[in-house]
């Protein structure tokens, strides 16, 4: 008949350990308790007397159990020996800690083990195949010496590791064993455990593992491979580790998750989680034969680790402020910038929002104010349209805008009139889709009614700004999706260009665009450019714009809107 003996390693929260011991004993399990030698003797005595009414509870000699050192293994070995010696009817030994909480009744555990005779439940994997380790020591934990404490003498520890690396010092792994590692918490059969403990070569193995890094996660995990007829490489104890290698802690609000996980034991429980202790130790409940299924808990903890190591892309906040190139996404979603389009088309904003369904703003970086869609004075997230606030940190402004509007694509106009501070930021952002009609800023100049000398100066200024901006876009650092047409190129086949851009935004190219935005009348524009040239100001960003015939008085037909097919 199956009978589980529990070896329990205790170092804090002794009152909780006592509760759990009573639970095991009530299920007819002998318990062998090891209390860390660091616990004060008065505290130990009080604890010992608190369970003195339980005849099947024994205490083993106390070892000093510092994390990552041999003490834990030595304590486990000795306690297991006593357990096997004094309880001849014990068929399995379950290694648990004082902060482990049994989630299912002992009978269920007995039934489960009885249904799987001679199976050892111990997580055991070779170092080469799993990326579990934290801090870069995987295979090396078996080939180096670790005489210094990682917790207390971190510098010595690290120094000695790098010294050994430099001198290429390697220890020999004892013949016949292949290092494996895995969770410290196992459930082994009497046959396997006694074979490990009574191995004629045990002294050799012990000597070797004494200087291995974290032997409690590798000693039994390695040796079990020598003797076990069947290793089921998983732990019956639900225990999840975070990115620093310390166990996740369970609280009262995990109650439903734990209940549904159908695991036998969970670790580690916060000692003040009263509801968990009351619920799981109090019930007698119905007996289920369910297989442990920690999937949901696994996912929650995996997400937590992911959040801590990778974070939410495009988020900048009080506890996430990545260095350049570590952003994992400078912004959180794709957005589009149009340069020169609203100058060339009369109703571009409306047309674009109709064609793509995206949110289309005006010039967000205009000198007077941020021209939010619909002329609003604030926008999502209570972003203000105030130019001073925006320019105070324009990088935060655009990142906030994209973050705040997650789920809705943002488009805005940009041009040489606008604040250019973000020029490099958008150029380097892979989420930015930038479409430029270079030189289109000259169109409003042409339409305006100003003195030509002013126009000439203004044109020279804008051309210089746009040229600098284009340098950024064309530099080797730019990562945005960038398309640049000269004005002359663009007006040759505007629909084709618009189609490409729109397709990229909507992510499909099912139908051709049925409606075109209305282009401004460019008659005489070529001559305007020629006039600038005649004044010594060469507008080159527009490309080779044809000079119209010298204007005559003849009546012209008004231009029809473009229609495709």
């Amino acid at each position: 008949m199956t009978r589980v003996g529990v070896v329990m390693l205790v170092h804090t929260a002794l009152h909780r350990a006592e509760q759990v011991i009573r639970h095991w004993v009530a299920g007819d399990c002998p318990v062998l308790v090891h209390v860390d030698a660091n616990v004060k003797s008065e505290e130990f005595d009080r604890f010992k007397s608190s369970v003195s009414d339980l005849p099947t509870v024994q205490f083993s000699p106390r070892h000093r159990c510092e994390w990552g050192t041999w003490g834990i293994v030595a304590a486990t070995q000795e306690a297991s020996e006593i357990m096997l010696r004094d309880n001849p009817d014990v068929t399995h030994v379950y290694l648990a800690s004082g902060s482990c909480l049994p989630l299912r009744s002992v009978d269920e555990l007995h039934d489960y083990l009885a249904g799987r005779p001679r199976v050892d439940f111990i997580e055991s994997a070779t170092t080469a195949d799993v990326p579990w380790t934290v801090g870069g020591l995987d295979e090396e934990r078996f080939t180096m010496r670790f005489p210094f404490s990682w917790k207390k003498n971190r510098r010595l520890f690290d120094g000695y590791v790098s010294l050994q690396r430099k001198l290429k010092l390697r220890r020999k792994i004892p013949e016949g064993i292949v290092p494996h590692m895995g969770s410290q918490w196992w459930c082994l059969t009497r046959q396997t455990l006694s074979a490990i403990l009574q191995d004629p070569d045990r002294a050799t193995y012990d000597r070797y593992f004494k200087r291995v890094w974290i032997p409690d996660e590798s000693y039994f995990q390695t040796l079990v491979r020598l003797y076990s007829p069947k290793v089921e490489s998983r732990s019956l104890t639900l225990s999840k580790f975070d990115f620093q290698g310390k166990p996740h802690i369970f609280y009262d609000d995990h109650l439903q998750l734990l209940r549904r996980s159908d695991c036998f034991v969970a670790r580690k429980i916060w000692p003040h989680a009263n509801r968990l202790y009351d619920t799981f130790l109090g019930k007698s409940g119905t007996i289920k034969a369910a297989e442990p299924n920690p999937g949901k808990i696994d996912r929650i903890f995996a997400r937590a680790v992911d959040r801590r190591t990778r974070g939410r892309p495009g988020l900048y906040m009080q506890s996430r402020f990545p260095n350049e190139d570590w952003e994992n996404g400078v912004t959180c979603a794709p957005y589009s910038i149009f340069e020169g389009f609203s100058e060339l088309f009369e109703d571009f904003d409306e047309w674009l929002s109709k064609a793509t369904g995206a949110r289309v703003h005006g010039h967000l970086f205009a000198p007077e104010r941020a021209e939010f869609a619909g002329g609003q004075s604030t926008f999502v997230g209570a972003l203000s349209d105030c130019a001073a606030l925006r320019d105070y940190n324009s990088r935060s402004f655009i990142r906030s805008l994209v973050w705040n509007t997650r789920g809705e694509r943002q488009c805005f106009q940009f041009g040489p009139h606008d604040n250019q501070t973000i020029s490099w930021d958008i150029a380097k952002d892979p989420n930015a889709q930038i479409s430029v009609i270079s030189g289109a800023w000259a169109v409003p100049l042409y339409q305006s009614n100003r003195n030509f000398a002013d126009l000439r100066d203004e044109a020279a200024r804008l051309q210089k700004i746009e040229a600098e901006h284009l340098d950024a876009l064309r530099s080797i650092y730019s990562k945005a999706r960038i398309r640049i047409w000269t004005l002359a190129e663009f007006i040759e086949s505007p629909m084709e260009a618009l189609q490409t851009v729109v397709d990229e935004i909507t992510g499909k190219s099912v139908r051709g665009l049925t409606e075109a935005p209305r282009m401004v009348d460019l008659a005489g524009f070529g001559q305007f450019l020629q006039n600038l040239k005649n004044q010594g100001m060469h507008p080159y960003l527009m490309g080779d714009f044809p000079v119209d015939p010298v204007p005559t008085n003849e009546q012209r037909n008004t231009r029809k809107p473009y229609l495709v097919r």
Partner: protein
Amino acid sequence: MGLWRSYRLRIQRRRWLVRAVRKRRDLKVVADRTSQIRGRDILLVATMRNEDVRLPFFLKYYRDLGVNHFLIIDNDSDDGGREYLADQPDVSVWRTGKSYKRSRFGIDWVNWLLMRYAHGHWVLTVDPDELFVYPFCDTRPLRALTDWLDASSIKSFSAMLLDMYPKGPISAIPYRRGDDPLEIANWFDSGNYTIQRNPAFGNLWIQGGPRAREFFQDNPERSPALNKVPLVKWNRRYAYVSSTHMLLPRGLNLVYDEWGGEKASGILLHTKFLDTLTVKAHEELLRKQHYAASHEYKAYVAGLQDDTDLWCKWSEKYINWRQLEILGLMSKGNWA
């Protein structure tokens, strides 16, 4: 960081500590119950002036979170708040009539109490209008957080100041003693904050929110700092430098991750914008005891005279910490 700079910061820290010791003479004991403090108690330190109306809710809020002892400096209140505090069983009170400004806006006094009583304790340093919110605060007590921080070897915990305001003019609904201020001021700005790194102290400098939006359009650089590190496992060698915005040694300011991940963080709900502010702003302007020549209060008085409404169409209504987490104002980090 070079040796020279780290040496200078060390000197600076010493200077603040010496100053704190010197300024202890400003403080006169009103009620000293510090002998009740036990080894693992969580403490709260606050400086206040005429905040009687907020006190009942403030104490209840933090007692419910699991604060074991309150250490409070009263800067010459005349509204009965000091007497009320002195009657509480878990509060120690000191009184001072000395200048708030000359004690670096109360920080010297706070540093003294921290040095004297908080060594080895987790301690929250907050204002009476700040309510601390952290991940899982609805289901886990503060002790769960500090235990987790201990286990993760984290010594300081960030909580950005989030300005809360009512919908409509702030004097429209009167705040009554004992009420939850969040029932009146329950709106906030979710995404208009700017962040810069402060190279000298390594902290982030966060600005923005409704105050920047409404009162500091002309000079955004003067809008108040919102970054705070209110929860620290204190050591008598630590010192707050400027309010609770930053500390020395500077490692305590590294509450943010620089390699793409998110560290766990909380929020201080700032319930300043209640009807009580209008009176206070005028008084504080006369006293001239606030930071940067009371620039902030000048702006309030100018802005609040015509009963400015901080609420806008895109304001967010406060629900709970999970909402703040989703909006990206705070994070669970790897606490799950």
